[in-house]
């Protein structure tokens, strides 16, 4: 079996911020069942800052731990700061991932980008309407 770091196992066993945000400002879904991992990330944004993040993930230990870690990393960050979070940032925060898990199960940063894109599209749209 994969040998995960203690930090990965800790997040896997006690994932933070599991769930959904019904009135989320952005939702990012990435992955597919064939590769084994699907992640859905919800963000709530206020005054340009991510004030809440939640996730639901179908996947292996690494997929769950990276999802949990990314929610911890983004809460309290501005959108600009959040956009600097990469796969490497998430893996590093977890004390590393087994090499074959770096790509397939490290989806959290991708899901975050999709969620932010959705937020930007939505808020951009709102501003247009406000005008």
């Amino acid at each position: 079996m994969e040998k995960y770091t203690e930090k990965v196992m800790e997040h896997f066993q006690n994932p933070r911020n599991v769930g959904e945000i019904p009135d989320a400002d952005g939702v990012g879904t990435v992955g597919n069942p064939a590769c084994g991992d699907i992640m859905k990330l919800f963000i709530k944004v206020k005054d340009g800052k991510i004030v809440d993040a939640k996730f639901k993930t179908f996947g292996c230990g690494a997929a769950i731990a990276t999802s949990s870690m990314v929610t911890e990393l983004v809460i309290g960050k501005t959108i600009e700061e959040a956009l600097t979070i990469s796969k490497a940032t998430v893996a590093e925060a977890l004390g590393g991932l087994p090499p074959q898990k770096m790509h397939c199960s490290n989806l959290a940063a991708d899901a975050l980008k999709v969620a932010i894109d959705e937020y930007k599209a939505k808020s951009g749209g709102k501003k247009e309407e406000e005008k």
Partner: protein
Amino acid sequence: MKRKVYMDYASTTPVRPEVAEAMIPYIKEEFGNPQSLHSFGDKPKQAVDEARVKVAELIGALQEEIYFTSSGTESDNFALKGIALAHQKKGKHIITSEIEHHAVLHSAKSLEKLGFEVTYVPVDKFGLIDPQQVRSAIRKDTILVSIVHASNEVGTIEPIEEISKVVKEAGVIFHTDALQTAGTIPVSVNALGVDLMSLAAHQFYGPKGVAAIYIRKGIRITPFIDGGVQENGRRAGTENVPAIAGMGKACELAKSEIPGRVEALTKLRDKFIQGLLSKIEHAYLNGHPTKRLPGNVNISFEYIEGESMLLFLNIEGVAASSGSACTSRALKASHVLTAMGVPPEIAQGSLLFSLGAGNSVEDIDYVCQILPPIVERLRKMSPLYEEASKAGKGK
């Protein structure tokens, strides 16, 4: 102390104390080379000869039809490549199935690169091969058919007797990979009608590093390892005497104990399957309900992924396996489940518990107690479960 439950016997089995005892003299004092003319070789030679008789007796073969190898994988490689090379003048077509062990599948792929043509016969939803499919795949230039006796993953036992009739009618050589059956259920080379058979000691309480291949008398095959006279020149290399002695002992024990082992394991298996399916919703048995290995329990739990279940099981002291992509280095879902038409998201949620001599009713009860909360916990995290619940499919 925390409970430890080993349910991965399809991966490997522990060595029986009697087997270890049988090996020790050849690790310690009887170190001689069986091929030596001097007296140091006498006992080791005798040990190898006796072990060969015991392997032959287990599968109803003649002792001169048994060749020792280093692993089941080597036996499978030997069968496919040895027959292909020896018979390529007659033809270059080989038939195997989609659910073989990688030892057979990858040997077939290597032969394809050497100019051989391979047909992979499909299986039905239970993992069964239809002898008629084999019949229609046979061509004039077919030189070998290789079909697994029972899949190590889903445990479906193939109709080898019927397939061998079809193959014999066409005058083609027939090999079966019996790594999961020899030593586990009654296996007879004559009843099955096979020309070659692979079997490995560590699958039935023998040591690792030793296996055998049965080659019917009169079958032409190209030697697999060139060198000295060992194994009748067909598989050279100084004999692994301690391991071979251990394999002989494991065969002797298996021969007398198989009926009792099958009865006990079948009971445990059925109780386990029934327990898990009744306690957990959206769970499906993979493989055939009755034509399956006595210790094989392969179940898919919908909406969740296998590795995360294995990690939680491991924390609870339970060792099992999965057909999920994340548990394989190749990052692909089990080719066996895929061949059976199991959709990818269900294959990802498969767990394989393979039971053996160390398991008890208490072990079954323990896993039936700890697994439901693990499944529930992961489903609560799963976006697939959430969608299914919204669609009214989930609970």
